[in-house]
């Protein structure tokens, strides 16, 4: 197992190099001169703009720019943004915020998603089941920003029970609503996934055998059904972490959260190659680590899966 993990970690290196190269190439291929755009309708002289271009290596060929970046990355110097701020500083302030948002969302995914999923999976009552199915379908169909705005208005402005934005106040009270919104789609999916898994497993042969042994319903569900049902759910949640971190852009915009999503968006719009690639690298690493953890977790939970020598 240790060897397996080691190999997986080694594999991340070519993945990162490949991804950063690809992203850098894409940013480079974007039309438009980011330097001119910095000045809008009041451009300085060509010479002044040339100085800036030179400072950011924008006057060099693509491959040189990429190598500059790579070299810097190895020494953990990711360069500066156009504003003059160190990229690592940008990452250091925005990453933890998005991470907190994502973790909080995952927490709700587990609590509400798995919890409700189990309840619906076990109970056969039609009414509650249909209600859950309908509402999850509705939530999945509504775009996140619509959901966000509606909830923001309803709970923040009208009813005043939750704060409308997060801004500086990165704490549980302020992040509650955005996390729930962000988790919305995932929660709906987890409920459905858990429900179908539980339903399937409730009818599984080994569950019947467990009952035949004389186990009561509660034990059967908690010990047998749950353990087997949660395996694919855990995989999904683990993979979701990466997706949540990268995809929180909309939620961050609606609730004014200074996270990676927004940084990435504005960096792309401004054509800040170094910043884009650095942020993407961070996200790629998170994704890879999350997936690795999930795979390892799977092996831990399912004895049929063992990596390395059989």
């Amino acid at each position, binding site marked *: 197992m240790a060897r397996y993990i080691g190999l997986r970690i080694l594999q991340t290196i070519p993945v990162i190099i490949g991804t950063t190269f690809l992203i850098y190439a894409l940013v480079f291929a974007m039309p438009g001169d980011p330097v001119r755009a910095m000045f809008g309708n009041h451009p300085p002289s060509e010479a002044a703009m040339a100085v800036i271009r030179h400072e950011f290596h924008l006057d060099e060929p693509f491959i040189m720019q990429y190598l500059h970046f790579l070299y810097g990355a190895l020494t953990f110097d990711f360069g500066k943004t156009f504003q003059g701020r160190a990229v690592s500083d940008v990452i250091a302030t925005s990453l933890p915020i998005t991470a907190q948002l994502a973790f909080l969302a995952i927490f709700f995914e587990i609590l509400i998603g798995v919890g409700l999923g189990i309840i619906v999976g076990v109970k056969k009552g039609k009414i509650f089941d249909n209600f859950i199915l309908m509402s999850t379908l509705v939530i999945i169909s509504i775009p996140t920003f619509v959901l966000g705005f509606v909830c923001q208005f309803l709970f923040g402005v009208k009813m005043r029970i939750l704060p409308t934005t997060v801004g500086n106040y990165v704490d549980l009270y302020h992040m509650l609503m955005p996390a729930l919104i962000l988790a919305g789609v995932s929660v709906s999916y987890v409920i459905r996934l858990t429900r179908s898994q539980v339903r399937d497993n409730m009818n599984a*042969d080994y569950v019947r055998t467990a009952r035949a*042994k*004389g186990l009561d319903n509660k034990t059967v569900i908690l010990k047998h059904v749950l353990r087997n049902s949660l395996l694919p759910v855990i995989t999904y949640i683990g993979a979701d972490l990466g997706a949540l971190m990268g995809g929180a852009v909309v939620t961050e915009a609606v609730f004014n959260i200074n996270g990676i999503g927004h940084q990435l968006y504005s960096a792309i719009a401004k054509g800040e190659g170094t910043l884009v690639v650095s942020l993407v690298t961070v996200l790629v690493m998170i994704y890879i680590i999350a997936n690795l953890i999930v795979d390892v977790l799977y092996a831990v939970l399912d004895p049929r899966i063992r990596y390395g020598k059989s």
Partner: protein
Amino acid sequence: MSKIIPEASETLLDVQNLSIDFDVDKRKVHAVQGVSFTVEAGQKVAIVGESGSGKSTTAHSLINLLPGSGHVTGGSIKLEGREMVGESEKTFVQIRGKKIGLVPQDPMSNLNPVYKIGKQIGEALDANNVDVDHDIVQKVVDGKLEIQHSDDELFLGRNARRKIENEVLKIWLAEAKYNVDEIMQKVPKESQDNLSLRKDLFNILVAAGVSEENASDIHSRIVKLHKSMTVGSSIRIDVIHTLQKFGISESKATQIAHEHIKGSEKVDRIAGLLAEAGLVHAGQRAKQYPHEFSGGMRQRALIAMGLAARPRLLIADEPTSALDVTVQKRILDRINRLTSTLGVAVLFITHDLGLAAEYSDKLIVMHKGRIVESGASLEVLRNPKHPYTKKLMNAAPSLNATRMISESTSQIDKSIQKSFNVFEFENLTKEFKLPGTKKNFKAVDDITFAVQRGKTTAIVGESGSGKSTVANMALGLLKPTSGRILFESTNMDEIMKSKKLSKDFRMKVQPVFQNPYGSLDPLYSLGRAIAEPMEIHGVGNSKSRTARVKELLELVQLPSSIMTRYPNELSGGQRQRIAIARALALNSELILLDEAVSALDVLVQEQILHLLNNLQKELGLTYLFITHDLAVVNIVADEVVVMESGKLVETGKTADIFKNPKQEYTKNLLEAIPGRNLI
């Protein structure tokens, strides 16, 4: 001290007029109608029927574990005199495991893959609050049930066994006139406590001053003693008897037993239960997961689970249908012995009449939800009264001793000269490289035999025998590692290399596989499925092909209107007919039937075998019949090839093999055919 349980004199299980319905797509299906039967304490009852007869449903209703929408609509189930129909789930939870145990059908899907075997058995103990110190021995004496419960039923624990063996060792040393203390001083300290378990006991004793002769004698006796006592299973009284058998005086044996045997821990008891079910190295096995067990081992684990709480009735639901025939025999024997010893009644569910007859006292035949006949097993077997029972009897391969005879007329053109042997296999070997090991795995090892034209040659073997690999090589799907295959005197190598020759080959040799549900493309209409081989080989045009399809359907006795239908509308037997029709589309000469009837009910199986037989006579077909079921071989094959672990064990004419098997393995296989000895 034994107690006589008063209610034990009543019938253990009394089912009267039981009816069970299922709700399927808003219709009601009457799965069981008006079923009545009884099971006495300690009695073995078998319910026989085909799929859909309601036998499993009846059994599961006894513990209220009907699947899906099933529910009891009428009748009564009395367990030990108590009415169970309408009782709450809570009540059923109490009786499950404790009063009625279940050994389910499919060993893989019935074990939770994520928990260790030992843990799952432990669950059965915990759920029923089983006392892991004492055994419960139920004996039926004069029709009354006696439950014994005394300290003589204390289980042997690991530590206890170790200590007892050590004491016995010392006794034997003393008997051999050695000074025990002196010897023990010369034994290295770390070995002193577990001498009896050590493989190098001989060396240690010799080093301590014991003569080689004595040391070897003591060592071998200790090993025998060790094997005779099972942790978690042997009870004190057993141990006393065992010690006596090994030459210890009764008083000494009693003293030793009383001193050391104080009962076992749960983990010991689990190992003991597994050992009772026939699992070797039970203690280690308990720490493994289901996917690390073989099919037979899993079934044993399920047996251990079913009997863990010492129920009064054990429901065995087709416990061996997924197992090889020799393993099957062992398992059923084990269940039989165990339940007899423990005084447990058995309700045995099966589709195999022979099996039912061999392992039960009373036989109940069910058909379409009703009981058509019941009575003492041998009686029913020898004098079946109901026509359905008679049909089953005639169709059961294990109860029929002779080759099927076809009454069709032959349509072969005898003027065409063809080779005597269709296939000749010479020193055929196939090796596979396995990942992680250095040695190659020999799936087929030096097989030599021939397939005569116009006859049925059967390759019979259990799983892992290599018969399927031989089949694949015969079809040209695998290349032999060494040896050669001659098809109509031409080397298969050459055939496969040449495009034309291989195409011809494919026209002449066609397979029919086991799974009727998997071998037909669900998106093809049946007519298209049958015509496909013709299309591929460019035979005829669309019109002639349709005509041929109609011909073939007639041959396999299916209406031609079925051409436009789809596989999902047919039953298993009908699908196999379609597969056979497809195999005949190109006027093939040899049909390779790979377990082609193993998945079919016994009556359907009989029809298909008859059909194949007739076709063989009419069209001069040669069959290469791969199967694990020796009983089927008896009624369809002319020549038999017996394989085991890749090697050829024995070959010859069916009648010869069955009357005078020469090899040990063949004898075992024949022994395992259930019901053979009853007729």
